[in-house]
């Protein structure tokens, strides 16, 4: 299976206007929610009751809204992760596995490393998460760069391996399991925690780390030589190579950064919310991230908005489940429809703006 995302990246990133991206965002969201409503309705439940519960859960109280931001945090980081790889022409479906191992590494560093002040311990634990995610994604990057193995297959295989590693580490005889019956690591020390900054909520401020990463990603992609190289390889690896950009090294680096961001998502989640690693800490953030990256037109600002939308869905679904009896599995169905819609978007609105190979070459050589 060989495949490049050149055309899709063109369609999504060479947008004619902000308006078009915004229209796509709203259109996909509405279609996704409508589809969800049909599924809810077809199971003899009221979509109005369900969605009212969802949005009142998300916006009805300060606590509810801080929960939205807490859900948004890993989604934003994972969305940036998927988008970053996309800009280099790589489809990182492995964000979930990288996130899992990032959370594991950060959780381990949070309790195993002792005696450091918080301003060293916390960054170190976060970095452990980044490193674990980056190293894991590098396996897929290397297989792609030197063996031509499509990253969609390799990252999925690596996902399952990562899930099993996570399970093993905290299984009954696992090396990182805390005493007791709960399959989790020991709690991380206070010096490694992102503690709540608003009283009576769980709001850790991790969202600010994610927002800084969004700004940083925009800067790197559009204002540095590295970003230029990554985008050039994403648009056309052969043209980039012709222009003197090494495609393999660039792909590896992009994959490592992408994995690092996913690892950070897991680390922030473990250090800022659960305070310990368990293999069930992510309800599939890495998979939602695909919808988020595409819905946000692969642009950091769009991804912030898209992750906020999914944060609302996730945080609100708790109340939807309690009040309306609608299970949060519906969110995956909504994500799926949103991805469908975005994939069709190029077809629906952008027929004529296909770039020829020649144009891409000219762009790279400019």
């Amino acid at each position, binding site marked *: 299976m060989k495949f490049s*995302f050149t055309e899709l990246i063109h369609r999504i990133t060479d947008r004619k206007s902000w308006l078009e991206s915004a229209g796509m965002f709203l259109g996909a969201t509405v279609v996704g929610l409508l589809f969800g409503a049909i599924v809810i309705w077809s199971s003899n439940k009221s979509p109005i009751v369900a969605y009212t519960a969802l949005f009142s859960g998300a916006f009805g109280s300060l606590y509810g809204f801080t929960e939205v931001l807490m859900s948004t945090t890993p989604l934003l980081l994972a969305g940036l992760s998927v988008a970053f790889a996309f800009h280099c022409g790589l489809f990182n479906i492995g964000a979930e596995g990288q996130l899992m191992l990032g959370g594991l590494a950060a959780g381990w560093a949070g309790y195993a490393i002792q005696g450091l002040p918080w301003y060293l311990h916390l960054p170190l634990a976060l970095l452990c998460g980044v490193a674990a995610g980056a190293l894991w994604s590098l396996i897929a990057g290397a297989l792609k760069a030197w*063996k031509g193995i499509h990253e*969609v297959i390799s990252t999925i295989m690596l*996902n399952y391996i990562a899930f099993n*590693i996570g399970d093993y580490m905290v299984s009954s005889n696992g090396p990182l399991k805390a005493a007791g019956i709960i399959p989790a690591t020991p709690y991380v020390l206070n010096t490694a925690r992102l503690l709540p900054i608003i009283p009576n909520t769980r709001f850790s401020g991790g969202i600010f780390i994610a927002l800084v990463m969004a700004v940083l990603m925009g800067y790197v992609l559009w204002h540095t030589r590295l970003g230029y190289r990554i985008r050039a390889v994403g648009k056309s690896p052969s043209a980039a190579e012709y222009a003197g950009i090494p495609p393999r090294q660039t792909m590896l680096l992009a994959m490592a950064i992408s994995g690092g961001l996913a690892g950070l998502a897991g680390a922030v989640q473990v250090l800022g919310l659960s305070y310990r690693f368990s293999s069930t800490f992510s309800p599939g953030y890495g998979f939602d991230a695909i919808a988020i990256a595409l819905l946000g037109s692969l642009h950091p600002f769009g991804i912030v908005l898209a992750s906020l939308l999914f944060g609302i869905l996730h945080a609100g679904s708790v109340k939807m489940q309690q009040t309306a009896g609608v299970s949060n*599995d519906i969110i*995956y169905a909504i994500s*799926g429809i949103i991805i*469908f819609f975005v994939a069709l978007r190029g077809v629906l609105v952008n027929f004529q703006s296909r770039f020829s190979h020649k144009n891409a070459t000219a762009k790279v050589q400019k």
Partner: protein
Amino acid sequence: MNILSVFNIGLLAATLRGATPLIFAAIGVTYAERSGVTNIGVEGIMLFGAFSAVLVTYYTKNPWIGVLAAVIVGGLLGLVHAWTSITLKANQIVTGAAVNLLAVGIPNYLLIAIWNQPGASPMVANIKPLHIAFLANLPIIGPLFNSQNLLAYLAIFAAIVGQIILFHTPLGLHIRAVGEDPRAADTVGIDVYKLRYLCVIFSGMMAGLGGAYLSVAQLSMFTKQMTQGRGFIAMGAMIFGKWTPIGSLGACLLFGFADALQLALQTIGVSIPSDLLMTFPYVLTLIALAGFVGRSAAPAAVGKPYDKG
């Protein structure tokens, strides 16, 4: 404890049982890719197939009607994939990923909506192993056939017939031509879209069949995420098998063996933790892809939409 004790005829029987769903899915994706369309949605289609089979069996009490339903649902999802990728020319990988996400959401949602059970469906009637007297009475390898049902034989049969059609009939020649050079095929009067539609719908039906095997033949129920990446492993088998049905059959048997071996080792209580043993088929897929695969075996036009112009 003797580790060698797991290497017996029972292990081979388990190999075939583990390989059967993979063989169906792998033959399906082989045809789709040979015609020039990649379908990573097979993972999700298998899951939909597994669910539909259980749902219909639950109401009809007949697992074969369930299997039929899975094939139809798979074919319909294949039709959707064909429409988006061939007619609308959307990105095939992204729409395939969308199918996979839908498959995470919808069956799990319906599990709760229909049976109010998260995680697993109620038990339903299942497909019984087929007892063929002359095979079961064979010396030594007889036990290999005791635990197989009709679908296992069908899978092997499908691989052989699939190989013959693809490489020894005009239809197969046309499919390969469409996947290698659609423009040239079009010029000599082959209907590119029709063949691609047929192959992609077929890949959906086969994935549905593979999913049905998991739920109504192997387990007699549906459990959350029960395919566990088998659709992707089937794609790995297709690549490992060099895009041929017989090659895919061999690769699926290898992955089935890996799965059977890790299960057998778990059962005898080998000192490797079971969570790590479970990674064996996935690790093997990666190693097989990394170590033995040539880079240029894929059909030339795979993944590229064809514009009649």
